């Protein structure tokens, strides 16, 4: 059952959606096919819509830099701890090579970017996870950067906003990766004890050990529409009960319905929502 911490849900529906008009010969990198509803959009239109599906409003994955671009005020972002790099504490086969390859292809050192910025003038500490880097699994570097983010924010009396995404713990770092769940949750607790605000924004997909630690601990928990959020892998559960689960199982809307998210907020309203909520927690208030 533990393997569920690592399973990523790739599709929401039983059948892979068919690409309509697939006979038309357009290079696939010019098209976006929605994994939820199967709608096909031109890449250009999809980018212009901030990577939101016009068919079903599924909020597709963003890179950390794309997220910062649409979230932080221009030129306001200052990065923390950019040079932290994963090592291979267990001597796990192929882990070094994988890290090296991903550093090259993503330009990132690991799966989270942290720092400080303003959002419509409101200052906050911010963390953004990037699912391109080993499915944003949490090893020592992710754990350490998140812990430092909360410690620094506590020192500077800043609110924290984290855009979560993760496949879970990073198996290649063994028990050390599991302990990052306790380490990050402890850092959240210390920040919280100072009366400071923490807002979680759950993005696609947030699962496993990250769901079971800092992603679920926000004072306010926001989810983007149609994203996958859960603890266990969907296919594992389906395998156990031998039944197909409804498409909205473990979606943002499922979380809202069961009381585990405060609100579902679209990308077009995210900056406004975050900055207002932060302002409502300052002395100046609304």
């Amino acid at each position, binding site marked *: 059952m533990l393997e569920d911490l690592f399973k990523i849900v790739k599709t929401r529906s039983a059948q892979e959606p068919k690409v309509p008009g697939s006979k038309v010969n357009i290079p696939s990198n010019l098209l976006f096919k929605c994994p939820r509803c199967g709608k096909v959009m031109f890449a250009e239109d999809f980018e212009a819509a901030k990577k939101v599906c016009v068919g079903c409003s599924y909020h597709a994955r963003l890179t950390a830099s794309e997220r910062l671009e649409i979230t932080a005020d221009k030129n306001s972002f200052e990065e923390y701890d950019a040079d*932290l790099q994963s090592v291979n504490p267990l001597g796990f086969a192929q882990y070094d090579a994988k890290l090296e390859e991903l550093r090259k292809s993503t330009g990132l050192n690991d799966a989270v970017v942290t720092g400080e910025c303003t959002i419509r003038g409101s200052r906050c500490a911010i963390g953004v996870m990037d699912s391109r880097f080993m499915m944003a699994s949490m090893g020592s570097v992710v754990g350490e950067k998140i812990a430092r983010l909360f410690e620094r924010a506590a020192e500077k009396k800043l609110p924290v906003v984290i855009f979560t995404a993760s496949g879970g*713990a990073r198996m290649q770092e063994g*028990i050390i990766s599991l302990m990052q769940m306790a380490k990050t949750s402890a850092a959240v607790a210390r920040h919280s004890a100072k009366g400071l605000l923490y807002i979680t924004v759950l993005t696609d997909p947030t699962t496993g050990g990250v769901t079971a630690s800092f992603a679920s601990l926000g004072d306010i928990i926001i989810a983007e529409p149609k994203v996958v959020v859960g603890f266990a892998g969907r296919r*594992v559960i389906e395998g156990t009960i031998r039944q197909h689960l409804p498409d909205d199982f473990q979606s943002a809307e499922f979380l809202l319905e069961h009381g585990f998210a405060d609100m579902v907020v679209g990308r077009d309203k995210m900056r406004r929502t975050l900055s207002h909520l932060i302002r409502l927690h300052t002395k100046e208030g609304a």
Partner: protein
Amino acid sequence: MMNQKTPWERMEIIRRKERPTINDYIPLLFDEYFEMHGDRLFGDDCAITGGIASFKGRPVTVIAQVKGRNINENKACNFAMPHPEGYRKALRLARQAEKFHRPVLCFIDTPGAFCGVAAEERGQGEAIARNLFEFVGIKTPIISVVLGEGGSGGALALGVCDELAMLENALYSVISPRGCASILWKDASREKEAAEMLKITAEDLVGFGVVEAVIPEANGDAATGPEETAEQISQYLYKTIEKLSKIDIDLLLDSRYNKFRKIGVYSEG
């Protein structure tokens, strides 16, 4: 005493049905045990037992994952795989222990938190996260002991403590060797190899600074002598409660925070 067994040999020992469970140890460790039920929110989870016990004349709170010895017992305790209400019961009892200034003793023995529809609907992720967040600040000593299987987040939810001990054959891992093998090589049958790679024995975990103590088992296998093994656990608990109870609570909470804060291996600059 050096345990020469391979991770796989230990895995076979802890999976045997003769392996003593918390139900064997409770009467051997405590003079009295009053079991308490329910999370006061949804229900009672039989995969976790909890209550108040008398340990060498001292009141303690006990929180433990329950394994069965046969299919009926295992059905009743869901194979020691807790639902969210189990973790929430654990938190309720830890808060109660804090109020009455008694130490909390957690016993870990689970393949993992249960993965199912109801567990997701009731917030399995949130329940585990909440325990990690809250236990780090509980103002009373907490000691956790891994009796057999320490399965991932479902084990860690009872593992935020001042001192963590493992029985000598116990294993504690982020993923089952089987799960690791099927992800890595798409071949679950290579679980023996994965068990070696994952570094999951008590000695490995002492090396990583995750575990503070290894408790010897009777003749190298607890099943050969539950009484003698219980006596070893009892001696460890007695000594550790004595030690932790003398520490100023704010210092204890700082060192609990730092125990987890310092775990991590990375390069910088």
